């Protein structure tokens, strides 16, 4: 299945901004994070089609997965 993956801020470094990627059905958000070798301590906000999800969320054909780091004040 095709999934659009969008990366933000530091997660883009050395990777991409947005890409369509192919995954077998049954792929979770966590699988994509592992596949892209994203440092888990930086991946804080997980959105599928603009809705917050968790690492175990099952992706579906044509989903848009956005991965963002944490918001910190200061």
């Amino acid at each position, binding site marked *: 299945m095709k999934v659009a993956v969008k990366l933000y801020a530091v997660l*883009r470094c050395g990777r991409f901004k947005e890409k369509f990627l192919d995954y077998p059905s049954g792929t979770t958000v966590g699988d994509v994070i592992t596949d892209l070798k994203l440092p888990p301590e930086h991946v804080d906000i997980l959105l599928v089609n603009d809705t917050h999800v968790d690492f175990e969320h099952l992706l579906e054909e044509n989903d848009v997965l956005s991965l963002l780091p944490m918001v*910190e004040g200061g």
Partner: protein
Amino acid sequence: MRFLTDKPAVEPASVLYRRCTVDLKNGDMQMGEVPCLNLEDVLGGFGRSFQLLEKREICDAYVDENPLIVNVGLLTGSHVMTGMRTYFSGYSPIKGSRKGLPAAMWSAGSGKFGAKLKWTGLDEIIFENRSDQPVYMVIREGNDGPVVELKPAVHLLGLTTHEKIMSLQKEYDDAHFAVIGPAGENWQNVYAGAVALSTENQLKSKEDKSRFAGRGGMGSLMGYKNVLALVAQSNDKLGSTPEPVKKANVNVIKGGGSARLQPIKRGGGGGTWAAYEVLQAFHAVPVNNFRPQGNDIPERLFRSRVEKSYEIKSEACYRCGITCHNNIYKRKEDGSAGEFLAKFDYEPLNLLGTNLGLHETEQAAALIHLCDNYGMDAITVGVTVAYVLSYNERHPQTPILNGITFGDFDGIRRLVELTGQGKAPEIGRGSMRLSVDLGETGYAYHVKGLELAAYQPETNPGYIWAIAGGHMSMGTYGMLAREGKTDTKSWVEAITQDKLQIVGFDMIGLCKFFDIVKGIGTAMVVDCLKAEHGVIVTEQELKDAVKRAFLRGMALEFRQGYDKDEFCLPAEVTESPNPNIKMPMLTTPEFLAELNEKVWEVFDREMQELL
């Protein structure tokens, strides 16, 4: 501090801290050891200072009875990473109730002054009354404990914060400094004066890289008292780091702690600046007085854009591995760093850049530099200027302050300069007073008189219950973006339990970045306290002390005349909902009414004994 017990929560009176009370009217000083009343007294910071403030009846910030309390936290000056904090407390010139009474307030800053102060052997200074001549205070370690002296400071008058620090550095070796700038000296017309705290980097590089205790006008209170600077002179007192503290420090750097704030080239997230990119994904970066437009205009101040033309150096306070400062330099032709421009943190960058309609790096940097050097709170100044710009947009025929508009850099810069010189009280006294004078309060982005940090109120109803500014005293600002929670139950729990724990850092002497998510009630802090001071406290005792201190702060708000209807967001948020923000709309009248009811149900009950 002297510990005659290893159980400070159970036997607080067996913990003694050293305090110096100075009567600025006649120069009298009283030095003594004070037994603690409870664990929050032991922890320090506002946990202690608010217990003194609640004993005073203060009707105006600028009266002699309003003390300025300067203190540190239990872990300030320790081996624990980020243990650099100094706290300034008093009744605030800027934050106040509709009845006109000033609110109790504290402000915290890093830099090395706090550690040096602690190493002189002094834990707290209370300034009473005011001096009729400008003075500065020198605190140094003597053979029998700290020695304190007041000195004439006429030669420092009119100097910027950085110039004052540079001037004092020539006189005092092995010392660090806390100073006000021209803004604090012009306290009559600038209520938003900040205190600048020197850093090692600043003293070495001679560049204006202070840290600031900015919020609540504590620099203006210091100016009212005619105290222009504090000098803490002492040897550095850190030997080898105890093993448990080493472990905690590594965890802060490598573990969950604050990895995200470290430099990108070390695998970190690049500091608070990264919030720009995260919030822009939701079109929630404040633009033109907190009205995001749903376009890509904020991207012009993204780090990735700025670094194409400027050098960014990641720098830090003394011994701090978090290295959260992003210092911006002009780039020389050979590609190396040239002139230092400013430090880019999310809040000042947004509130003196995008939120004023300014999108050029050097324009935002120039305004940050001005606020830093005049010694003004960038948040209050930025938000109040944004209010003026939005007023002029709504009233093109009858504008105020020379009719400046969003994006008019020269006009805005001039206004910021005049503010720092005490010649623009409209800005210097903050957005609450200006909006009341103009009869348009709904567009002023403050809560209870203190301007909002750079998070859209639509995303953070927790602002309403923050007791000392939105992002430092209520950790709900990223909750909607991070967790997407829209049910009242989660928000009530967050506001009344977990997210208020953020204020613990303003007691114990550490930066919030030590562990912004979990607070100080953790095994990591328990281990550090045992290793540094030999004391045994539990995580729950720490959490309870933080909660009591928070509730005391809120009870003090009511004591100073706040009505519950002042606990509210700017009216524009509910009256004219912004359709551009791509997050669930939390701030509907219905949601806010339900949240209010449920939060007060908890706080009313818990505050009963304190009111």
